[in-house]
Structures are given as C-alpha cells and as structure tokens.
C-alpha cells in the first residue's frame, strides 16, 4: 500500500525546544490514525510537522512521496489541516470566506454549496461575518473549507472541539467518507471513545516520540 507519511527519527524544534525528538511513524493511504498522549506528548507538533508547518531538522520526513526537508510547500497543496484555530477571517462573511478558500484551490461554487450541505450549515448564515457565529458554527465553516480543499491527507487536531452532538456525528461521517474515498486521516483527540470508533489505528505519543502503535477494530 502507498506510504503517505514516512517519518524516521524525525526531529523538529519549536524555538530551541525539541517538539519532536526522533519520531517514527509510517502511515499508508486510506488509514485513519488516531494520535493519543498526554498534554505535551507531541501530537500537535507531529501534525504540524507532517503538514510542513514545523520544520524537521533531522531524520527522514516524507509526506505523499515528497521530502519535507527539501520542499515543504509542495506537500502543503495536498494537505488539509484543521488545528486548534479555525483559520477564519473574522470580518468576512461566511460566503466570502468560503469563496476565497475555494478559489485558492480552484473549486467552484457548486463544490462550496455541497461542502456547506455536508457540514449542515444553513444558507441563512452565508451573509453573516464569521466572528458572529457560535464556536460550533465556526468549526463547521472550517470543516467546509477543508472539504472544499479535497485534501489527500487530512490532519486534524482536536477536531471535535466546539461541535455539538450532531456536529460530531457529521465530522465522524466526513472522516469515514474521506477515508473510503482513498484519503488518509490523521487526527489527535482526547475524546477517546468517539475517536477510537472512527480510527482504525491508534498511535501513542510521549516526549515527542511514538511510544505505542496498535490496530483497533
């Protein structure tokens, strides 16, 4: 199966602090990998390093067949990341924001409408500045922007945060659909039961390293 993430002894620094201290992680296409670990274990750092947002300074770091240490920008085009932030422009209307994100990846208005439907965001919110939305609605807009991006690799950090019960179901379905369509999903979550229901593999992190790796049903 195609290797999507190939990290061997990857070291990444946050300032002078080693955020990743020799992380080993191999992920194949279509896998749904849950990252677990206590605060400071390196989950966010690993996701950011895979996305090409945190430079890997030592070890091997390949994502989607490209060497991250040689070219981080090339990888980013195929990656969709949702971190703790929602990446929303506060003053833009939801519609403006979605159009900008869609235009950046060459998606059309139909794809935007479909993404908004998928995350169940009502059209009455299209002309509302994103700052006026609730936390859950903002998360849904961020998810819609991710869907429009059509990423080959989904990276999500605490994606369930801020979503209501229905929103969490919508998110889980999105991840399962993306995976069945061939995309790879790597996410970190403290909501163990819900996350393990979505994941087919759990990777435990500690001290910036992978300390456990197991399959789940």
């Amino acid at each position, binding site marked *: 199966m195609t290797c999507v993430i190939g990290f061997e002894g990857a070291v990444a620094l946050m300032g002078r602090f080693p955020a990743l201290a020799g992380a080993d992680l191999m992920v194949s296409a279509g896998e749904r990998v849950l990252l677990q670990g206590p605060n400071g274990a390196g989950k966010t750092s690993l996701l950011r390093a895979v996305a*090409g*947002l945190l430079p890997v300074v030592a070890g091997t770091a390949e994502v989607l067949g490209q060497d991250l240490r040689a070219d*981080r920008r090339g990888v*980013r085009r195929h990656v969709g990341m949702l971190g703790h932030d929602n*990446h929303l422009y506060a003053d833009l209307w939801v519609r403006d924001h979605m159009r*900008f994100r869609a235009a*950046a990846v060459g998606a059309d208005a139909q794809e935007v409408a479909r993404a908004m439907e998928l995350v169940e965001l009502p059209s009455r919110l299209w002309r509302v500045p994103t700052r006026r939305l609730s936390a859950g609605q903002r998360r849904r807009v961020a998810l819609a922007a991710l869907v429009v991006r059509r990423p080959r690799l989904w990276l999500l950090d605490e994606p369930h945060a801020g979503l209501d019960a229905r929103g969490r179901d919508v998110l889980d379905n999105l991840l399962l659909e993306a995976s069945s369509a061939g995309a790879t999903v790597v996410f970190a979550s403290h909501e163990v039961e819900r996350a393990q229901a979505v994941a087919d593999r759990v990777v435990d992190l500690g001290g910036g390293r992978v300390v456990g790796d197991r399959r789940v049903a």
Partner: protein
Amino acid sequence: MAAGSWGTVVWRDALLVAGKDLRIELRARVTITQVAPLGVLILVVFAFAFNANAVLLAQGAAGLYWVAVMFGAVLVIQRAFDVESDDGNQDALRLSGFHPGSIFLGKAMALAVQLLVLQTVLWVGLVVFFDVGVADWPLLGCAGLAGTSTIAVCGTLYGALAAGVSVRDTLLPLLLLPVLAPALLAGTRAFEAATGVTTDAGWNWTGLLFVMTAVYTVAGLAAFGPLVEDG
C-alpha cells in the same frame, strides 16, 4: 511549469489575496471610518498648531500631507497583518499553496488601493483646511501614485517582518517610519512642485519614488518566502 504559466499563476493568486484583503476592508470599513478621519484630524491639529497661518500652512501643506499619509499607512499595514495573525490564518495562508510572491504582491496591491482612498480623503482635507491649489495635475497624480506604491511595497515587507514578533504593534512604526523617510522627503518635494510652492524638479523626485518602489518590490519578492515561513 513554463515561465509564462508560472507568472500567470502568481498574478492570479496575487489578485485573490488582494481581493480577499479588500473584501475584509469593505466589510469592516476600518480605513474609511477610522484611519482616514484620523489623518484628517492630524491635518486639523497641525493647522491649529500653526495658528491657522495661511502662508505657513500653504508652505508646509505637502509635508503635513505625507506625514498624515504615513501615520495612516502604519495603521492600515498593521491591520493587514493582524488579520493574518488572528485565528491561525497565517498557517492557512502557508497551507494555501500560494507562492510567497503572490502573497506579497496581493497584500501590497490591497494596501495600495486603501492608501489611494486615504490619500483622496486627505487631499480633500488639504484643499478645505489649507487652501492648496494645483499647478501641475499630472505631476500631482504621478507623485501620489508613486508614493502610494512605495509605501505599499515597503509596508508589506516590513509588516511581514514585524508580524512574527509579540511586540509588533510598536515595532512596526519603529522599523517602517525611518525606512520611509526618503519617500516622505521625495513625496513632499514632488507635491511642493505640483502645488506650485517651489519650482523643484518634481518629476525627478517622482522618479526616485518609482525607483524605491522597484527596489522594495524586488526585495519583497526575494524576502517574503523566508518571512512567511519563519513568521
């Protein structure tokens, strides 16, 4: 990828970034409702400080105009980069796959449009409060455009430089205003010639502004990648 298509992509993405920044301004109206009135206020305060001396005001009008433009520009530039810092948008911009040159050109274009609006309002203020006349309209227009483009490209470069640090609100003016001092001088001399206050070679000063624009554009295109990555 062919050079032509690469250039097309860069400009297309630059227009996207510029359109996004201008739409943010259109929705929030910060330049027109806050920055422009502040600029006019600066002109009025100077008028009071000079005791409404018509001769003195007419002589100093060009300089005061560019001082007001630059203080207004600092606020506009600050805001252009604040919106990228909020809610992790800088990460989103990095993940967008836009070439750093596109981001630089897009943000500079959006800044230039906002500065032109600011300058138009300030010019009206200058005519109303300082009773300034125009001797050479083409020179005035070209000098205005040249000054705008210089401030826009230089401001975009230094805005990105300051964006990554926690003290950016105070750092940006400290970095930017000294660098823009030659532009202030050139803009002032060109406007003095355009308004008939002096018979200086206004076109030479305008040419200098265009040269500064070219230099800062090249510097911005070269430096923006590392600035965005390390910001």
